[in-house]
């Protein structure tokens, strides 16, 4: 299997993390991370709580000293440079707006540290507030603003100094669900408009996929996979990534026939073997493999398919009609459940019914073989 090439390989590397580790009292929060951040990209660190993504971000901003490894920026190791000397700015999860200062003073705060002229500061503050559509709130205090407005001010403040790198810590974490969707796209618009490189931390895979050019999936302090949202979703490299991003059905199987151009895998719970139309590189001598298939790539029919490969038989155990699509839970032999989503693209077609016996099938390129 060949991974699609990273879309940014032609861009310049802005920052490189080499063998970066961090331990707290013997607990390793980040383990040997190697990572390149390219200029102009939005890069998301995605993972569950305690996966080390926030610690990694805090090492980039300078709030945590790495135990080991280096952070190369403009040819220099900045791992030990204090935060106030780094040309990076962060938008905090809680926004961390200074409650005793007006919106204007908050945005101007960073500029004042650079000993900028007052007129220049004023101009820059206006420009920033205009960018985030908060001009008419410049005299307000943060506690007179709504959550979304605070986020805009926080964004303006973190962009005011023209940082080389913008760090976003759970940017939508403090917003309600409805506002999130709108802000995600607007935030990307603003970041792209300014042209700043951005590293964000999130636990929300949808947010990462909406906003980021590339995603690193983290678990237990390690990066498991780096790739575009499409790569991560369609070509997960391990069970954890496949499971963490979206929903996935996993089968245990044994390789029956392996050729450079195709693989045939016997799966006990399926009526027919799985046929994959490309060679695999992963497990090698290990004949037992995991096969992942996404719910939307599985088709359902009431009659058995005619193909030799790639189908199974089961009973509809549960179904949820959600309007635009339906979710089915199919019970296979040996008590394995498979989730299938079907777009309801035909008004008149009757959906399948509970307890109905049905056949599942898919195309030869739908399955991904995973390492354990």
């Amino acid at each position, binding site marked *: 299997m060949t991974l699609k090439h990273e879309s940014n390989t032609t861009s310049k590397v802005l920052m490189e993390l080499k063998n970066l580790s961090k331990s707290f009292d013997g607990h390793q929060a980040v383990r040997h991370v190697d990572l390149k951040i390219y200029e102009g990209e939005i890069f998301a660190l995605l993972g569950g709580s305690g996966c080390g993504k926030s610690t990694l971000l805090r090492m980039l901003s*300078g709030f945590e000293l790495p135990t080991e490894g280096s952070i190369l920026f403009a040819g220099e190791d900045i791992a030990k440079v204090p*935060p*106030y*000397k780094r040309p990076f700015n962060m938008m905090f999860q809680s926004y961390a707006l200074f409650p005793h200062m007006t919106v204007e003073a908050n945005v101007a705060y960073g500029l004042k540290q650079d000993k900028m002229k007052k007129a220049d500061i004023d101009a820059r503050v206006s420009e920033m507030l205009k960018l985030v559509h908060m001009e008419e709130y410049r005299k307000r205090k943060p506690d007179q603003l709504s959550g979304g407005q605070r986020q805009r001010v926080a964004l303006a403040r973190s962009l005011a*100094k023209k940082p080389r790198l913008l760090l976003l810590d759970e940017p939508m974490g403090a917003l309600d669900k409805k506002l999130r969707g709108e802000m995600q796209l607007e935030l990307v618009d603003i970041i792209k408009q300014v042209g700043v490189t951005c590293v964000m931390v999130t636990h929300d895979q949808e947010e990462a996929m909406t906003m980021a050019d590339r995603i690193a999936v983290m678990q237990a302090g390690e990066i498991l996979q780096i790739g575009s949202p499409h790569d991560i979703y369609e070509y997960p490299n391990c069970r954890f990534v496949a499971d963490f991003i979206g929903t996935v059905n996993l089968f245990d199987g044994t390789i029956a026939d392996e050729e450079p151009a195709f693989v045939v895998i016997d799966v006990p719970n399926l009526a027919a073997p799985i046929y994959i139309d490309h060679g695999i590189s992963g497990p090698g001598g290990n004949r037992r493999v995991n096969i992942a298939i996404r719910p939307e790539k599985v088709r359902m029919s009431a009659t058995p398919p005619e193909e030799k490969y790639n189908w199974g038989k089961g009973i509809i155990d549960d179904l949820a009609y959600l309007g635009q699509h339906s979710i089915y839970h199919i019970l296979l032999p040996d008590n394995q459940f498979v989730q299938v989503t079907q777009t309801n693209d035909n008004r008149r077609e009757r959906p399948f019914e509970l307890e109905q016996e049905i056949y599942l099938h898919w195309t030869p390129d739908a399955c991904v073989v995973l390492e354990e």
Partner: protein
Amino acid sequence: MKALTMRWYKLRQSAWLKPRNSVIAIPYLWLLLFFLVPFVIVLKISFAEAQIAIPPYTDLITLANDQLSININLGNFVWLFNDDLYFSAYLSSIRIALVSTLFCLLIGYPMALAISRAPASSRNVLLLLVILPSWTSFLIRIYAWIGILKPNGYINNALMAMGVIDTPIVMLHTDFAVYVGIVYAYLPFMILPLYANMMKLDHSLVEASSDLGASPVTTLFKVIIPLTKAGIIAGCMLVFIPAVGEFVIPELLGGPETLMIGKILWEEFFNNRDWPVASAVAIIMLALLILPIMWFDRYQNKQMEEQS
């Protein structure tokens, strides 16, 4: 009959008999009994005249020969304003209290900041160390300073042993000793409100300041200090107000030239047995202190309004 039940019903409805209000009434009752009543008694005595009797002052209201007379004597207050001693004692008390408060703040603020930044496990121990001295008698602790500051006390002995000085430095019975005593005794009252305030400070604000390019010193003055203003004011009030009326510390550690209103009060009461003048001294002191207290109260209310 109906009118009677209506009246009873109205009485039940009246504010004071509601359970919620009776609970609030308890602290008011406390204040009435232990603040207002004593205050009125002192105020009354301050308008009386001294006499050799029990009690050693005249009544304000007398009934003699069917004549009810009210005698309000303003002489005590006139006396206070005519004699320079009292004016300079007030001034000196306020000066000593102000300087002590400033030193408490300068010492207490970094201490409170350090404790609030300490790891959670050692924070309580550090806080306990601040409070621990208060568990022994105040008097004994102040008395102990005599042993430290006196000419052949620990400090002088140590300095002479090291050869820094040949003759002992006079520290005891000076204003310096009074400052040391007040700062030592009232430091916990500065640290505790500051600490409480700093614990509420969102640490991400400090990080945000640093992230935006502010050095630690700039962050301290632009973010931490402005956001702990309420703690600073509370701590200063808790030190300043009792320090103005302090008696034990200037009496034990101060010299004959240490002029503090607490000492004057004691002398008027116990040496001169002039209760009315002593009461007038106390009333004026209260009047002086009420200004900063009222200002503090107004500031606190404003803060509460801003938060809500």
